[in-house]
């Protein structure tokens, strides 16, 4: 079976065609980064307008890349949340009407959980899986027991990891989005020259905290430290926090591999260092192909297919859920 996946929760309009073995036939992503750059973040009404302009062409592009026809599709999957309400409704409305037009089943999926499924585009899925998802909107540690059963082991109490990258980049005068900019200048930096304070931990919990790092980085910069050194120290600090929570989760669950996904997993330093550290205790790090780390629709289709195989069908009156608990699949 081939699934058409549709994603429009934030600032990427995306469509993809994926087989039930997790093979991506076509995947198209129309980024809006240029549009929001001037504002230093995503403007909801601007995003929603652009989604409407780009969605149908993006779907068409995915079909062209896949070289298949509408009649070859057996399932439609769409992001139902979390995300920007106006943006979500564009994708949802298109997906629902498309499924109706083609008389196809529809499955609404959770965007955050879908990030983990990007790792299973080309890799086998073997429940239970442990997944660390870090993006601009979310930082969560999940245990996937089944397609419909997701347990939240930890989450950020304040900023998401990707948000911290953006805020630190802004404090250092680098621009937006922050992730790639920080990674680039950190290569020439030395974290020991601008050490950042230990991050708060929460008694008995695997929760994260990133807002303190931003404040500390800002203070170091104002006190005259080099941006490159601060960027390096910031990445080290993010790594150590991700590692400490992950290690505890691995101990508790006995998992032998960790999925690392979401926009922050595109960071080469974090990918490499996490893999190195986990390998010391014989744990494998599974990361999605780089192009599926950030928002895309192939991951939406992949989770949609898993849910469909587990018997999930969304009702005709499926609605967007801008605020949605991450453990709902």
């Amino acid at each position: 079976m081939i699934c058409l996946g549709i994603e429009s929760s934030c600032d990427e309009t995306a469509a993809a065609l994926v087989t039930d073995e997790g093979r991506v036939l076509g995947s198209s992503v129309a980024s809006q980064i240029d549009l929001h750059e001037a504002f230093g973040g995503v403007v909801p009404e601007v995003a929603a307008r652009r989604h409407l302009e780009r969605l149908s062409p993006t779907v068409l592009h995915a079909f062209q890349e896949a070289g298949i026809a509408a009649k070859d599709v057996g399932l439609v999957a769409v992001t139902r949340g979390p995300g920007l309400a106006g943006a979500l409704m564009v994708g949802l409305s298109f997906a629902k009407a498309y499924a109706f037009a083609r008389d196809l089943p529809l499955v609404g999926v959770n965007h955050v959980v879908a990030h983990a499924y990007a790792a299973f585009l080309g890799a086998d899925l073997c429940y239970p899986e442990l997944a660390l998802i870090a993006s601009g909107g979310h930082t969560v540690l999940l245990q996937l027991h089944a397609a419909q059963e997701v347990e939240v082991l930890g989450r950020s109490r304040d900023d998401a990891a990707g948000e911290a990258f953006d805020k630190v980049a802004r404090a250092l005068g680098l621009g937006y989005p922050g992730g790639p900019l920080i990674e680039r200048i950190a290569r020439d930096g030395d974290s020991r020259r601008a050490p950042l304070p230990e991050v708060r931990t929460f008694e008995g919990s695997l929760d994260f905290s990133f807002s303190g790092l931003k404040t500390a980085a800002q203070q170091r910069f104002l006190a005259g430290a080099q941006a490159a050194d601060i960027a390096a120290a910031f990445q080290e600090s993010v790594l150590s926090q991700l590692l400490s929570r992950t290690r505890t989760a691995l101990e508790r669950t006995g998992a032998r591999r960790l999925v690392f996904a979401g926009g922050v997993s595109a960071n080469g330093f974090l990918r490499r260092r996490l893999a190195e550290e986990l390998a010391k205790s014989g744990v494998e790090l599974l990361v999605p192909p780089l192009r599926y780390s950030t928002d895309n629709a192939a991951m939406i289709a992949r989770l949609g297919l898993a849910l469909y195989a587990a018997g999930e069908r969304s009702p005709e009156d499926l609605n967007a859920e801008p605020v949605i608990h991450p453990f709902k699949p």
Partner: protein
Amino acid sequence: MKGPWLCFDTSTEMLSAAVLGRDGRLLAEVSRHAPRLHSAMLVPTISEALRLAGVSRSDLGAAAANRGPGSYTGLRIGLAALEALRDGLGIPVYGVPGLPAAAFAQAQDGLVAPALDARREDAFCALYEVRDGALPRELMEPALRRLPDFCEDLKAHGRPVLFLGDAVRAHRAILETCEYARLGTAELRAADLGRYALRAREEATIADALSTAALYLRPPAVSDGRDAR
């Protein structure tokens, strides 16, 4: 173009869908007051209208929806669905400008000003001359205007102007001070969009008015209560 037309309107709190015969005859219409539920209820409403009309989705000849002005989110829900029907069914679709369609829907000859409430003293409005059942002639283009200023501009025509749309209710006090304003009550119905498109399609001069691009009539940077609908 064979087959009946599907028309729907998501631009206000009323959600409606209609099925028209190719001659413009109404086969079925479903309307529900559904504030904030358009994204959930549009497809079920379309499905119900088709069932009542006894028309299968694969028999449809075309589809039309309101392209604005109206609730931004509502317009996007309708237009995204309209494009999906085009892509999924392979039929032509038409985004219909709501203000001239409202003017076209009322039969009386004369000046007509469809106007939608845009909060404070503002309205999305336009002015048309309606005559002999022809497509309305545009005298003032659809735009966001201060309603008192718009009423002032109408004096130049020296003739009564029939106001339509939800601004009639929302801005009754302003309109009652305007000596030329006559208050209509007609609400735009989904079927009216289809009838306007059926006619407009034949007139090449306004054919590109039927694109599926949303007519917001206001730049996005301004935050606006309408979006909450």
